[in-house]
């Protein structure tokens, strides 16, 4: 410290800055990505910053880099998925990993094998990373405690879908610069949406104000304990928000009749051209896909100039590359 005090002023400033940099040097230590709830704002920001470096791989002549060369990634999907599964597969390929596709229909799961037995058998073949989607909340966490490989959650029940949450905040940050102080509405079937939950954790940790919007039948009972506002009227919030994320109505998960008719839902909660006229001119329109055109969102809006829906897909690839890279790095350094 004495050296700092006696050094000339400008020198002192730079030496102090170097000390701060050194002491604050962040280290990514998680070998699993199970959810965003447990991550700090700093960890989320680190993933987003890392993803930035992966974006250009997809635009150059050789769309591949070598950091996961010799590693094996398993896509272990117990639920249907096109976008997420392909995105993870392509991300693994672009990092030079080998990928095994494992889906429910064509596997021994249909013969009655348990999740743990399936995973242990895969592990016996020498895999490094398991990307898992499962209809039971907590399945990825359970797996992470029982096998040595890294586990990445690609969606568990109604709990979390962390890479979707990350790609959503990545897209918002890229277009809006920062999430600090933004007002964001997440609209639709909140109860059955793991995307809504992962979004909520990521967005609020990065400083945004989140409102869940939907009919009371599709807003979960526990919402009072979550860091969000609730509104039962899209018309009430449409003028105020900077970002609107329209969730898909998940007919396959609904029991009973949460709303009287599809037309009535679209009338009250659909993002229509009419409603868009009352929104801020630079409102960002998002949707995790697949879209029910004309139900939660009108085609003109989904394909319109405020829509970031296809950018979300592109960014998802960079974010998933970053996640695979980081969990592998943490695994290598703790082994």
């Amino acid at each position, binding site marked *: 410290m004495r050296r700092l005090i006696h050094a000339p002023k400008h020198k002192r400033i730079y030496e102090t800055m170097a000390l701060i940099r050194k002491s604050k040097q962040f280290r990514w230590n998680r070998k699993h990505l199970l959810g965003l709830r447990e991550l700090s704002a700093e960890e989320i920001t680190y993933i987003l910053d890392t993803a930035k*470096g992966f974006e250009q791989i997809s635009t150059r002549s050789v769309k591949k880099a070598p*950091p996961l060369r010799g590693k094996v990634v398993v896509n272990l999907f117990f639920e249907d998925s096109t976008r997420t599964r392909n995105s993870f597969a392509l991300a693994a390929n672009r990092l030079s990993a080998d990928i095994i596709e494992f889906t429910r229909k064509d596997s021994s799961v249909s013969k009655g094998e348990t999740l743990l037995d399936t995973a242990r058998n895969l592990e016996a073949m020498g895999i490094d990373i398991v990307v898992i989607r499962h209809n039971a909340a907590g399945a990825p966490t359970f797996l992470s405690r029982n096998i040595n490989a890294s586990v990445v959650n690609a969606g568990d029940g109604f709990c979390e879908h962390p890479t979707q949450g990350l790609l959503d905040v990545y897209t918002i940050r890229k277009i809006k610069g920062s999430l600090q102080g933004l007002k964001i509405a997440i609209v639709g079937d909140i109860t059955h949406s793991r995307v809504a939950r992962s979004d909520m954790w990521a967005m609020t940790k990065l400083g945004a104000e989140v409102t869940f919007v939907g009919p009371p039948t599709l807003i979960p009972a526990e919402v009072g304990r979550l860091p969000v506002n609730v509104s039962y009227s899209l018309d009430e919030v449409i003028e105020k928000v900077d970002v609107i994320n329209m969730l898909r109505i998940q007919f396959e998960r609904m029991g009973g009749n949460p709303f009287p008719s599809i037309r009535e839902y679209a009338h009250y909660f659909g993002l229509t051209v009419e409603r868009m006229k009352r929104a801020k001119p630079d409102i960002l329109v998002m949707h995790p896909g697949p879209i029910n055109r004309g139900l939660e969102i009108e085609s003109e809006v989904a394909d319109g100039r405020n829509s970031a829906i296809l950018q979300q897909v592109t960014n998802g690839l960079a974010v998933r590359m970053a996640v695979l890279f980081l969990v592998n790095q943490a695994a290598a350094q703790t082994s």
Partner: protein
Amino acid sequence: MKVILNSRQIEQTLDGLADRIVSETPGELNIATVGIRSRGEILAQRLSSILSQKLGKDVPRGTLDITLYRDDLNSPQSAVQPKVQTTEIGFDIDDKIIVLVDDVLYTGRSTRAAMDALIDLGRPKAIKLAVLVDRAGREFPIQADYAGHKTDIEPGKLVQVSLVESDGKDEVVIE
């Protein structure tokens, strides 16, 4: 701590490197510089502007992040955790003479990674290596085409390059 290059000597060294690059490159070929993050980026910037002046034409420059090409990513003992950053090369590298710029050439491992990263972006006419400090201790069969200061210090020591843009002063010291 011993100063091996001061501000004026750094300036002279870069000017000398530029002179040699100009004299050894046929005039009809297009030169561009590509700096290896992070000090190489700044040096490439300076070298490009000196070369532009000497050649009377624009010498584009880019920045290469070699993190994904490092050979120690999966080694448990690596003390630092390299952060992936962006590669920013806004021009086509095909058929150009690419002068790869780094602050210190030591083991040669960064250069190997940089060459691999570069050829994933295209096919340059040639890759040349220019470094401010050439330190003995190569682990790979790699040599600099244009080396500034040469030094033969023992393995335990550290060559610390400080540049105004990132550290507030121009100086190379051995610690």
